[in-house]
């Protein structure tokens, strides 16, 4: 791993945008001191994209908060059973394919590792880009593993694994409408899978950006934002699994 620190002077003093508002936006002054890789406002664009992601994750969280709230309340909700003329609790916990879910979890966590490697690799590439223009200097080229492609493959494996889990539930007679607990299992895992699929689409877009030779800085921003989204999806999955396994 290259530890070469470029000595290209930063074109603007290091400032934090919120504290000193005396520089025009987009001038790269708020990029935390990272050298400008030639694209004006790159640091500001990265910061803006990350801010956008944090904001975008909020409604996704609210969606799952709403599902969780419905899940917990439904568990305790009594219902009228006409055959016995009494009010009973009809919540029968679904026996989950735990081993399969755990394998899927490992796959997803591994994909988190690979996408983090992709993110850091691209960050290093961006940081080292100015070095290429220094005559007589060439940085050590690291062997580039296709981290992005690996993540896509692992992501698709996760989705395939979820499909297998659903098949497992179906063979044991638990379909979407079988009972309230099975409805929620499909709902929570399905909603997560849809969002993860969106992440895979973003990764494919990042891959296309490489193929179409988009500027390095733009590619870095796309992969960076997608990587953080991906980590959030992994944490969300762990939360959903814990909820289904322990809160029934």
């Amino acid at each position, binding site marked *: 791993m290259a530890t070469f620190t470029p000595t290209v002077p930063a074109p603007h003093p290091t400032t934090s945008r919120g504290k000193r*508002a005396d520089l025009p936006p987009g001038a790269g002054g708020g990029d935390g001191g990272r050298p400008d890789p030639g694209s004006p406002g790159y640091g500001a664009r990265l910061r803006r994209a990350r*801010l956008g992601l944090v*904001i975008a994750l*909020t409604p996704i969280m*609210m969606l799952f908060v709403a599902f969780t709230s*419905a899940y917990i*309340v439904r568990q305790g909700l009594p*219902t009228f059973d006409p055959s016995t003329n009494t009010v009973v609790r009809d919540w029968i916990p679904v026996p989950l394919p735990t081993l399969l879910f755990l394998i899927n979890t490992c796959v997803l966590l591994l994909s988190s590792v690979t996408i983090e490697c992709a993110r850091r690799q691209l960050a290093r590439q961006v940081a080292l880009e100015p070095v290429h223009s220094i005559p007589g200097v060439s940085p050590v080229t690291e062997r580039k593993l296709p981290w992005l492609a690996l993540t896509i493959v692992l992501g698709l494996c996760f989705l395939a694994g979820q499909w297998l889990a659903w098949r497992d539930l179906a063979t044991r007679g638990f379909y979407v409408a079988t009972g309230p607990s099975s*409805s929620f299992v499909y709902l929570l895992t399905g909603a997560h899978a849809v969002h993860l699929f969106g992440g895979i689409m973003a990764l494919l877009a990042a891959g296309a950006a490489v193929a179409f030779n988009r500027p390095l800085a733009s590619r870095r921003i796309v992969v960076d934002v997608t990587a953080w989204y991906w980590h959030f999806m992994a944490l969300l999955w762990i939360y959903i699994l814990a909820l289904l396994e322990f809160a029934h």
Partner: protein
Amino acid sequence: MATHEFAAKESQAHAAPQGFVRKYVFSLDHKIIGLQYYFLALAAVFVGMFLSVLMRIHLIWPTAVLPFLGEIKPETYLSLVTMHGTIMVFFVLTTAPQGGFGNYVLPIQIGAPDMAFPVLNMLSFWVTFLAFLTLIASFFVIGGAPLHGWTGYPPLSALRSSGPGEGLGADLWIASIAVFCIGALLGSLNFITTTLDMRARGMTLMRMPLTCWAWFCTAIIGLLAFGVLLSAGILLLMDRNLGTSFYLPLGTINGQLTGHKGGSPLLWQHLFWFFGHPEVYIAILPAMGVCSHLLSVGSRKPVFSYKTIVLALLSIVVLGFGVWGHHMFVSGMSPYSGYAFSIPTMAITVPSAVLTFAWLATLWRGNIRFTTPSLFGIGFVSLFVAGGVSGPFLAQPALDIQLHDTYFVIAHFHLIMAVAAIFGIFAATYHWFPKMFGRLMSESLGRWHFFVTLIGTYAIFVPMHYLGIAGHPRRYSQLTEVDFLHDLIPLQKFITYAAFVTIAGQLIFLFNLFWSMFRGKKASDNPWEATTLEWTTSTPPPHDNFGGRTPVVNNGPYEYSVPGAPRDYVMQSDPATAATH
């Protein structure tokens, strides 16, 4: 000669587009997108008004046979009610103030060249447009539009056989709302990121115009609320189409078991109103921001206590998420929950009252210019009070037992949303029209419009309070068949005639709007002599708002009648003086 301060040229967010489609259809320019939202809302409001005219006609002439539509059956009346509410709440009150004016004005007012994510901005409009088409499509499918009200309560909305329109029509309704949620969330994302990250040099948060604060707060509410609505809609679609029982208890329909059991209609009510109450603050907050702004411009005085207004707006955001149960006092939920919701509901009158007093104090002893925007701003205060005072009545669970589902509730929310919030839209239109189109709207037509609408809407909705207290239920389509409503029919007739006159009065506005675009008196760059940054640009603003430069802000947004200043206003980008800050 303008002496505004500008910083050096910065890189352009995106180059000016060529070609009609890139310039006016799939535009990335926030100004065009804002106008697209505005005209979508304009089309929607006329559809919604047409539906309400049909409703009013049917109420007093229930057996009337209308051309093309025939006789309006009770189930058709309920469809009209449903679609009127849905179109107005989503496609007028959530699009025009925020998507329309917010998109157009916010970036310019904070000194930015565009929104943070122009592509997402364009997507948010087209997604909203798609949602509108999906909703309108429900009129034309087999069974027609749904009849479950804009609130869509199950079991009525969750069973396909519960009525005409509850088949495909209801599916389209839910799909439209779900798609709308996506569009609204994309918009909120843009507003928050832009406000936090793209303010010009010197534009601190506490120097932002109050319109920007209002749009920012509205975006925060939307961000937190629309996800929950989406979740409610997903569960409803699953109940309707996949046989789940999230909302449906054991029961029969037409003598046959539905096949569902164990669900709770209250779950929908909680999820829907957790969104639904913040939604009404989404509808009113931009109008509050516009009103605060325009009263200052019109009175030539700084707003009374800028900080207090900001705090009040933020308190409404926070408190607004704690009151949803006041829509459910008689739903069968625990009366102790009733207490828990009643108290914050009454508490939220405090920031609303603070705002009202601030507006009045802004006007007090001001050098008021009674231009059309100022008139609508003052009218907004009047209607906000009129609609707001019926709120604390409804906030008492004991009183709500009598008043729930009566015309009292209709009076309350129409005065606040259908009139006050619309006055905010009108005020904003008259105020920013010169900047958008380079011409002034006719002041005399504006005045006629204002007075007809003010008097007309009071005539329509104040009598409804009386109807409600007398026990007149809402959503009833046949008044003539019910004995105890018989004596209230003359009042319903009065309301209908007032509605005809008021709606006719809106044609004055429509004519004024389109005529002035082409034949209005040419406007200078700053016809209202206002202080905020949008009035420093040329008219209409260039593609990147400031012509390749970035403004530098030295003053607050409401520096009117500054002692010692040469004019009665100091613009935000003018050099700072000792008296300004």
